[in-house]
C-alpha cells in the first residue's frame, strides 16, 4: 500500500491509474464540493454546471459557512457526507464532464466499480465525522454557484495537504468495500453456525 500526493484538477490520466485500492493519498490544489441536490439539478433537471469539472476531484459535502460579502463565504466547519446515496451519478460525471475522482464517506456500492474502471476514475474514502481536521485543510472557499441550494451548492475549495484519504475503489476494477463485504458475509455464515 503506497503513499501518493496528487494535485487536482489532473491533466494526465496516469495520475489516476497509478493509484491502487488501499493506497494512501494526500491531495493538493482545487476540489469541488457537491451533494444530492446539486447533482439532481445537473442530471435530472438538465442544468449545465457553471464550473469546469474536467479532471476534477469532487467532495460530497454540505458545509457550515458564514456569508461575509455578496457571493463570498467563510468556512465554519466543512465535513463529508455519505456517498452511497449519490452513486447513480458516477458514470455521467465521468463520461459527460470528465470528473476523475469522487471523495466521500462510507463507500460506493459495487455498481460504481465498472464505470470507474472504464472511465479511469477513483473513489477516495475520507474519515466521516472528522470535520474539524478537514476544515483546517481547506484554505479558502474560492467560488460558489447555485447559492439558492444552500448548503447544497456547487463549491470550489482551495486545499492544502487534504487527507489522509484511502483509495476505496481504483480505476482497475478493485474495491475495498466489495472485498470487505465478501469476507464479512462468509464470516457471518460461520458466526451463525456458532449461535
Amino acid at each position: 500500500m503506497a503513499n501518493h500526493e496528487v494535485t487536482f484538477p489532473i491533466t494526465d490520466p496516469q495520475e489516476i491509474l497509478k493509484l491502487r485500492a488501499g493506497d494512501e493519498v494526500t491531495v493538493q490544489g482545487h476540489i469541488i464540493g457537491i451533494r444530492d441536490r446539486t447533482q439532481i439539478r445537473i442530471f435530472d433537471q438538465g442544468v449545465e454546471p457553471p464550473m469546469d469539472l474536467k479532471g476534477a476531484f469532487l467532495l460530497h459535502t454540505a458545509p457550515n459557512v458564514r456569508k461575509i460579502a455578496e457571493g463570498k463565504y467563510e468556512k465554519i466547519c466543512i465535513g463529508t457526507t455519505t456517498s452511497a446515496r449519490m452513486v447513480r451519478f458516477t458514470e455521467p460525471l465521468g463520461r459527460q464532464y470528465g470528473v476523475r475522482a469522487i471523495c466521500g464517506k462510507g463507500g460506493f456500492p459495487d455498481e460504481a466499480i465498472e464505470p470507474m474502471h472504464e472511465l479511469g476514475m477513483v473513489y477516495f474514502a475520507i474519515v466521516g465525522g472528522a470535520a474539524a481536521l478537514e476544515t483546517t485543510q481547506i484554505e479558502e472557499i474560492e467560488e460558489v454557484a447555485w447559492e439558492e441550494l444552500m448548503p447544497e451548492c456547487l463549491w470550489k475549495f482551495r486545499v492544502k495537504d487534504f487527507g489522509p484519504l484511502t483509495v476505496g475503489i481504483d480505476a482497475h476494477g478493485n474495491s475495498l468495500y466489495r472485498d470487505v463485504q465478501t469476507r464479512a458475509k462468509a464470516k457471518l455464515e460461520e458466526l451463525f453456525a456458532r449461535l
Partner: protein
Amino acid sequence: MAIDTTTDLQHTVEDAAAHLYVWSLKDIPQDLRDALSAAREKETSVPGKRVLETIHKNINIADSEKNLVCQDTGIAVYHVRVGEHFPLHPARIYEGLRDGTARATVEHPLRSNAVHTITRENTGPNIGHRLPIVHWEFIDDWDGLDVKCVPKGSGSENMSFLKMCVPADGVKGIKQFVLESIVGAGGKPCPPGIVGVGIGGSADYAMYLAKEAIMRPIGTRNADPIVAQLEDELFGLLNETGIGPMGLGGDVTVLQCHIEHADTHMTLNPVAVNYQCWAARRASAHISATGDIDYDREF
C-alpha cells in the same frame, strides 16, 4: 410569584439546552475518548489504523480550535428525567428545550438541518413540527431535572433497522438480525460506533428503546444480567465481522453494544437496531428546583 418562578425556570432550561447542544457538538465525552483510544491500540489493519489516527487528530483539533467535531449538527434529541416535584410543567420544559436549540443554532451559528418531510423546505433553526425530539422519564419523590442532549447525525440514523422476529426465532433470531444489519450497513454509519439494540415491547417501542440504548455512556451495562450477557456476546460477535473503521476492513467494528428491553406480547419478538457513529456526541446537565445548573452530572 408562581408565574415568575415558571418563567425563570423555563429560561434556565432554555439556557441549559443552548449550552448542551453546542457543547456536545464540540467536546465529546471522556468515555468515548477512552474507547476510541483503546480501539486505536487494538486495530491492526492499515486502513483501519489510518482512520483511527485521523479520528484522534480530529478530536484534538476540535478541542484546540473550539470547532465542531463533525459538520453534521444532527437532529436534536434530548433525554430528560423529570422529578415529580420539579416545579415546572413538562409542556414548559419542552418549550425551553426547543427555544434553547433554536437559539444555539442562530447564535453560534450552526447548520440547520430541519426540513418539512414532504416539501423538504427548511423549517427553522433545527426546530420544526415535533422537533426537537424528547425522551421523557418521570422520577418519583424527587424535585430535580436532568437533561441530556444527543445530536443525532443522519449518516448513522439512516442505518436503522427493524425486524418483527417471531417467538420461534428466539434469541438466535435477534443475534442474527443485529449481525446482518451491521454488516449490511458497512462503512455508511461511520464505524466504529455504538450499536443500540431495542428488544421487546412493540414495533415502535423497540426502536425507541434502541435510541435509548445509544444514549447511554460507554461502559454502562443493562441492569438485567441476562440482557447484559447478550450485550457482551453481541459486542464480541460484531467485532468478528471484519467491517472495521469506516468500513475499510479491520478488527474494530463497534465500540460497544447497548441493549434496552421491554416485556412484550407472547406472540411478539421485535428487534430494532439504531446506530450511533464514532462521533457519539452527548452532554448532560442537572437543574435543581431553584434553577441552579450543574454541567458535571452525567447520567
